[in-house]
């Protein structure tokens, strides 16, 4: 039963299994285990980013394609939902319709980009997606009558998902089950289903062809697989998943703007998470997202301490200032590409064998 859920893709390392279980339990009982709004905020972000990063892994890890347009698809889902809620009012129908529109647009755009630029080279695709994604981000910030420009969109979400809504009169296990908690479980549930779906996809015959194409596209072509078709299909699937993660984000934040969805920084974050976690492993997306977001949330205060501790030494305080945490992640990123191209998961699996 469990193996079936995981599509037969074992973590294949005791440490990894334990880590994944801890994460699963932590996320499943987050509202009960870590009271307060900041931890819940963090847990929801982790759920959303696990889907986002896992969908990116489908592309980079399993298909061997580097795209810089992943945030664009993420943004399309978020903006679709946001627009639905802004224009249609705070109903599930409006959110659903908007989400559907955003996801569909993401799929169409991914198809167009894929057919257009995957014929040539991986490097070409990377450049084209970078250009298109930046243009899209600029366009969104320009079309302020529709998108709210740089300020983004604030909107109401269905009442059942707001803190004002109480599911039970009495607290459960000491926690008042309000709309925010419901909202969290909606996100957790959907994220879990999406992740298991991705796991299913990469372990399906389709996923195996993707890996064959990644390892040797000439050979795959020679055996008779239409390489462009498979790569495009992976691009579309990954875009749809990213857009769905965007839908979740829009519902959770009640706000959608360029900085939370479309910015290059988020694209870089995704890259860091997938590489540090381990490309081509899916579970790497989980570890990468958890570690990165925890670091983002808590490491900066640690670096603040380091900055104070090194005050007086030239340059060093600047290097360890909380704002510079991306510097160290960048270094970690480059080092992991060189030395641990399979990331943490690859290390753990190798360590076992």
């Amino acid at each position: 039963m469990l193996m079936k859920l995981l599509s037969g893709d074992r973590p294949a390392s005791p440490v990894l299994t334990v880590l994944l279980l801890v994460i699963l339990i932590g996320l499943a009982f987050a509202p009960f285990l870590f009271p307060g709004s900041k931890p819940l905020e963090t847990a929801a972000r982790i759920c959303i980013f696990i889907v986002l990063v896992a969908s990116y892994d489908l592309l980079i890890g399993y298909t061997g394609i580097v795209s810089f347009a992943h945030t664009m698809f993420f943004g399309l889902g978020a903006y679709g939902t946001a627009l639905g809620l802004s224009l249609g009012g705070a109903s599930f129908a409006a959110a659903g319709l908007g989400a559907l529109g955003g996801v569909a647009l993401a799929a169409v755009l991914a198809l167009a980009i894929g057919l257009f630029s995957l014929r040539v080279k991986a490097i070409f695709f990377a450049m084209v997606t970078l250009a298109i994604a930046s243009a899209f981000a600029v366009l969104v910030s320009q079309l302020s009558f529709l998108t709210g420009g740089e300020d983004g969109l604030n909107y109401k979400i269905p009442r059942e998902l707001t803190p004002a809504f109480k599911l039970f009169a009495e607290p459960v296990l000491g926690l008042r089950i309000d709309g925010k908690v419901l909202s969290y479980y909606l996100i957790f549930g959907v994220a879990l289903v999406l992740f298991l779906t991705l796991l299913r996809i990469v372990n399906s015959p389709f996923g195996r062809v993707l890996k064959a194409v990644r390892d040797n596209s000439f050979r795959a072509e020679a055996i008779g697989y239409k390489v462009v078709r498979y790569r495009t299909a992976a691009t579309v699937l990954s875009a749809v998943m990213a857009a769905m993660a965007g839908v979740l984000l829009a519902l959770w934040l009640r706000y959608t703007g360029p900085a939370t969805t479309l910015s290059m920084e988020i694209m870089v974050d995704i890259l860091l998470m997938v590489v540090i976690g381990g490309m081509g492993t899916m579970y790497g997306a989980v570890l990468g997202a958890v570690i990165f977001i925890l670091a983002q949330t808590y490491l900066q205060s640690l670096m603040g301490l380091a900055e104070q501790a090194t005050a007086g030494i030239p340059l060093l305080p600047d290097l360890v200032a909380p704002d510079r945490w991306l510097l160290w992640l960048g270094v970690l990123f480059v080092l992991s590409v060189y030395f641990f191209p399979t990331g943490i998961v690859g290390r753990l699996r190798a360590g076992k064998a």
Partner: protein
Amino acid sequence: MSETLIRPRIEARPLGERLAEKLPLLLVPLLMLGGLVVTGNPSTWATLTVAGLAMGLMIFIMASGLTLVFGLMDIINFGHGAFVAVGAFIGFTVLTWLSGWTGHPSVLMNLAAMLIAVTVTMLATGLIGYGFEKVIIKPVYGQHLKQILVTMGGMIIAQQLIHVVWGPDALHLSRPLALQGSWVIGDAAIEKYRIVAVGVGLALFVAMRHVLKHTKVGLLVRAGVENGEMVEALGYRIRRLFLVVFMVGSALAGLGGVMWGLYQETITAHMGSEIMVLVFIVVIIGGLGSVEGCFIGALLVGLLANYTAFAAPKVALVSTIGLMVVVLMWRPQGLYPVVKAK
């Protein structure tokens, strides 16, 4: 051996084919003509056209190194933008030190300051390019995916280091006095700095063409772009050649950074990644590896961006993407596809 066997094939090539080769050249005047129609006002058009050419040539300066590096070693440096930003910051720092000269009414003093700033910048970014190639790129030759990731990582690190060295805020700097203001020709006001940018860009293009066509190093670069293995089999170390090209490309990115910075009079650590988008579009339009294509692509992008910024400001960047799409539909490998052996 009989002469009949060896008739040159150049005569046999149909007229259409030869015309098609020249066609991309025609795009630039065509676009200018289109600009004239859209703006409908010759003096506005003149201002926009000079602005477009200036922007295009500055992009060309930054993009030329990138495209050659790709042609030679099949490497796209996603961190190329870092050299643009670092160059701008170094150049600004030098110009700030020389503020007595740049604020001096003497044109000569102004130019001397510029010359020093540009020289220091290019030397510095060239040297950083050396380090970047040795440390970041060398370990991942021939692995595209890792190249993209690692050079991107290098870009992140470089941006952060700019913050460490120069602080988190944008820098502002006025141009040297001689480069401020405009010349008024008829009804059209043409900014002096733009004319200078056009001049520098054109001079660089001519110089680069000369080197590529008439020097041994240039011939080796062109030969290497087509078939690096054969260059090695003739006895040349292509890696050394590549390192030189990479350093020159980095130095040019630095030069472009200074010029772009002075054009905007404001620089940020992120300017590199913003400009990279335009640089990529230009390189793709021109055909990866082709300097001529890069030149034409840069002019097209610069002009189009300025015309659309006037006619429909909201879609300026999108219009350049549109141009890229149209060009790729016409020629999937760009305007000047580079011949690759194998």
